[in-house]
Structures are given as structure tokens and as C-alpha cells.
């Protein structure tokens, strides 16, 4: 690990001011950042510890939703009675991620901002446009079993590893931020993570000196909520494909559907056309297949990850079938 200076700041604004300076990294849970610092993928000259700032509350909003502080731990968010009651897809997605020890440490904002687990991003001896812009992408013609089939570019096909963010995408959560001049803004989660294009090193919409303060959830949605995660072992593994579904149906007919996917793309993947096609449709294999077609439009494999295309289709069928039978 490269040497750094360690600081704590007295306020959220001070944290944003610190974040505007070069070489500074904010540390909260640290479960991803310290991992990357040990490998010298991340080499901050200053670490600013925000763990003692008052951003650890889950509060009800005036609209009837929930406001989740940036420092709320993943385990606390998953176990919150209101989340379990009204946002089951989020609780289940959080519990599908990492291990209990990591969830006790990892935070809401840190989970959103975690980096990809692409092997080549982690290996400092290999080219990677995300780590060293312009150096090339080793995954395109390399080992790409865990990589994206949607949303990637010739510069990068890394996936976003979060489960939590996939559920938040299905819920249309909003990310609240503050910058070093005290200005606040709200970013729809759909716009929070960027696609790689020519700049895979830029992963979020956050500007320099802008930090996440909270994530807000809308009022509870009607329907059944499911998070299905397909992975190489039954627990404690990243998603190959995951589906967050919120489906309202009655008598074999779907009234509304929200579907977000993990493991497929550089950000949680959601396609409006797939959901529109399911609205007022009979809950049958034909409708499920059409939805899968819409989600997978433009999908391409790079060799080792070709299996994700049929796996996505089958997982979506299984999830929609399960929901329509309940």
C-alpha cells in the first residue's frame, strides 16, 4: 500500500471540499477501496475518513418514501423493518451481496461507487482503459466470462458489480449529493452510473468535489418484488446474471412490470420497451419471451460470456413465471 495521510473532517461540506482536491479519496466502509489500495490500483495521497459524519439514518420522506443516509451500512438497510416490508427487492438484493462481515461495514454510497471486479482492472501488470486510460482493454480478447454483453464499448466491457444498485434501479431511487460549494442536487439512479464509451475511467455522474449524502426511495410500489441472483456458488459470489423485478399482476394478467438486471452491463440495466410490452399482457411464455428479446436487443458475447445471453432469457422466464404463479 502506498503511503497516505489520514484525516477526519468535522462536516459533510468539509468532506466535499476535501474531495475536490487532487489525490484525495473518501473512505467509509473501505471494503473495496482498501482492497484496491493493497494492490495499488488505487493510490490516494490522502484518505478522508467520513465514518463519524451524521449520514447514517434511515428516515421517512414527506412523499411517503425513505431517505437512506450515505453511511447506512448494507446490513442495517437490509434489516430495516420498513425496507423488508415495502422494498423487499432491495432487502433481498443487499442480502445477496458479499458476506455478512462485509455488509456490516459496506455503506450505501460506497456500494453505489464500488469499482468493477474485472480481472484486468485488478491486475496492474495488464492494460486496462479504466485504470490507465488509453492503455487498452485486455478483456475484449481475454478471459471475459464475467463481462458485459450490453452497454460496453471497444474501450471497456467491465460490469458494475453491485446487487443493491440493481434493486434501486428497479425502484427508481434518487441519489442526493452535495458539492464543495454547498450546492445540493438530486440525480435519478438511471443517470448516476455512466456507460464507458471512450472514457471508462469516468464511472459516475459525480463532479469533482461532489459527494453522495443519501439515496431516496419512492413511496411503496404495488406488486410482488423478487431479486433472483444466478452465480457460480450459492452464496458469497458476484452475479453472472441477476434480475430485480417488481410485477403487479392479477388473474394471470400483468398490470405493470419493472425489470432491472445485474451482471450484464457497466451499470444496472433496464429497458422501458420490455416493461411496456408486459403491461396489460397475459402472463405467459410468449410475453416473457418478448420481454427478454427487448432486454437483450443489441446484446453480444465476447467468447467466454456468450452464455449470459441464454442465461438472461431463462432467468427472466423463471422470475416472471414464479411471480405469475404467486
Amino acid at each position: 500500500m502506498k503511503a497516505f495521510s489520514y484525516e477526519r473532517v468535522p462536516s459533510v461540506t468539509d468532506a466535499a471540499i476535501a474531495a475536490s482536491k487532487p489525490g484525495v479519496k473518501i473512505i467509509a466502509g473501505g471494503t473495496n477501496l482498501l482492497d484496491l489500495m493493497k494492490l495499488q490500483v488505487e493510490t490516494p495521497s490522502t484518505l478522508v475518513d467520513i465514518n463519524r459524519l451524521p449520514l447514517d439514518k434511515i428516515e421517512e420522506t414527506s412523499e411517503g418514501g425513505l431517505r437512506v443516509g450515505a453511511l447506512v451500512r448494507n446490513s442495517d438497510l437490509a434489516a430495516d423493518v420498513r425496507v423488508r416490508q415495502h422494498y423487499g427487492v432491495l432487502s433481498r438484493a443487499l442480502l445477496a451481496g458479499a458476506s455478512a462481515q462485509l455488509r456490516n461495514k459496506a455503506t450505501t454510497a460506497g456500494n453505489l461507487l464500488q469499482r468493477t471486479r474485472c480481472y484486468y482492472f485488478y491486475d496492474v501488470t495488464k492494460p486496462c482503459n479504466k485504470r490507465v486510460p488509453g492503455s487498452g482493454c485486455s478483456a475484449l480478447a481475454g478471459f471475459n466470462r464475467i463481462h458485459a454483453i450490453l452497454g460496453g464499448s471497444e474501450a471497456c466491457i467491465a460490469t458494475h458489480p453491485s446487487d443493491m444498485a440493481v434493486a434501486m434501479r428497479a425502484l427508481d431511487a434518487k441519489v442526493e449529493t452535495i458539492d464543495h460549494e454547498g450546492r445540493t442536487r438530486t440525480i435519478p439512479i438511471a443517470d448516476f452510473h455512466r456507460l464507458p464509451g471512450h472514457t471508462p475511467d469516468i464511472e459516475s455522474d459525480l463532479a469533482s468535489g461532489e459527494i453522495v449524502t443519501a439515496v431516496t426511495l419512492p413511496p411503496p410500489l404495488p406488486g410482488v418484488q423478487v431479486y433472483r441472483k444466478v452465480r457460480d456458488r450459492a452464496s458469497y459470489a458476484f452475479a453472472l446474471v441477476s434480475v430485480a423485478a417488481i410485477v403487479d399482476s392479477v388473474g394471470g394478467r400483468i398490470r405493470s412490470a419493472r425489470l432491472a438486471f445485474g451482471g450484464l452491463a457497466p451499470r444496472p440495466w433496464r429497458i422501458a420497451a420490455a416493461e411496456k410490452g408486459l403491461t396489460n399482457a397475459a402472463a405467459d411464455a410468449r410475453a416473457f419471451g418478448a420481454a427478454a428479446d427487448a432486454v437483450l436487443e443489441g446484446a453480444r458475447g465476447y467468447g467466454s460470456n456468450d452464455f449470459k445471453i441464454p442465461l438472461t432469457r431463462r432467468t427472466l422466464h423463471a422470475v416472471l413465471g414464479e411471480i405469475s404463479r404467486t
Partner: protein
Amino acid sequence: MSQATLPQTYPAKHGTDMEDTYAIFPTVEVTRRTVIETGTTALLLSSLPRGALAAGTGQVDPVPTSIALRINGHLHNLTLDPRTTLLDALREHLALTGSKKGCDHGQCGACTVLVEGRRINSCLTLAVMHDGQSITTVEGLAFGEDLHPMQAALVEHDGFQCGYCTSGQICSAVGMLAESREGAPSYVTADLTQSATELSDDEIRERMSGNICRCAAYPNIVAAIRQAMGEQT
């Protein structure tokens, strides 16, 4: 913590039995013990202030940071390179070697300790981040010569072979049962709106998935936890 368990390399002790101060940072002597235990020597060297070695490279010089940790009920004042993980602080600076370094990347769980009663991977957190907090390691679970019920259950059920993951398994299981008593759900909990009353074997396995046992003693670990769970309720 008795003085007899202190490593010879960190002798500067001041204060009372309950408040130990170690001057660790500036001098690290290579003793017979560390030469014999070459792995330990490598670890000690890796925790040296590397900024000083890399003078002139534009690298930041680490500023030693003073913190206080309450470990197994005893207050320890430490001055550390801020890069020191909680695990390295425990093992290399306080000679509490019960917590094990397996992968050092949060993937195996061998380093699991309880911070303010909650289980975490001590390898993926910096000691300075825990200034003023209470930490329980496997050394702090037993009451004198009486093993903690979880320790006794692991022994009784032969819940290990090589034993390297065992202290992490024990700390994790103690933390896991506390979470379960507070009603925390898991990924395999069928109904998230209900609090788990008694944990099935599937629940125990899912909740313990952050602790890897490469000897695959899992069936016996699950049996031990099931027994300890019954004794606590």
C-alpha cells in the same frame, strides 16, 4: 493482556495493567524470534514506514497516528502508520495472533473480529478508523480457563482440521447469533417480514458464507453452531 504475551520487539510499556502504551513505530529490532519466523519478519518489514524508504519519489511520508483501542476489555494506546490494518495492529503490534491472516482481501473470513459487537473483516479496515472503539478477538471470548460455548462446541464437534480458519469461524458465529437474535434476515429467509426464530442449517450456512474452510469441516461447524445456539436460548 499479561506482559508475558508481549512480543520482545515492542518492549516500551508504560502505565497500568489496564492501559498499555507501546512505542512501536520508530524502531523495529530483528530478534531471534523474528529471524526464525521468516514469515513474521516479512510482515514486520511490510509494516515499516515505506515513505521513508522512498524519499525523493514524491511519495507521501506516513505520519504516525496515535489512537486508543479497547481490545477484549483492555485499553491500548498505539501510535501507528495509518496504513496499518486492524488485523496487523492486533497481530503485529499487540501480539494477539488469534485473528488469522488468510487472503488479506476480505474473501476468506479468517480475520473476523467483533467491533462494537459486530463482526467485520479486520484485514479490510484501518486501525486508525477504529480509534476509541471496542474490539473483541477470539482471545477475549473465553472466561479464564472456561471456553466460550461456541469454542467448546467447535472442539466437541471436531469443527476443524488444520484450524487456521477456526478463530474467524468462532468470532463470526458469535456475531452471527447476535444478529439473528436481533431479528436480522438472510438471503434464504423465506419471508422477510418475519423475524427468524430458530435458524435452520440452510440459514446457518448462508449466514456463515463469509468464512471459508479449505479443510471443508462445514458439516461439523454447522453442528457446533447449532449446539451453541441451543445453549444460548
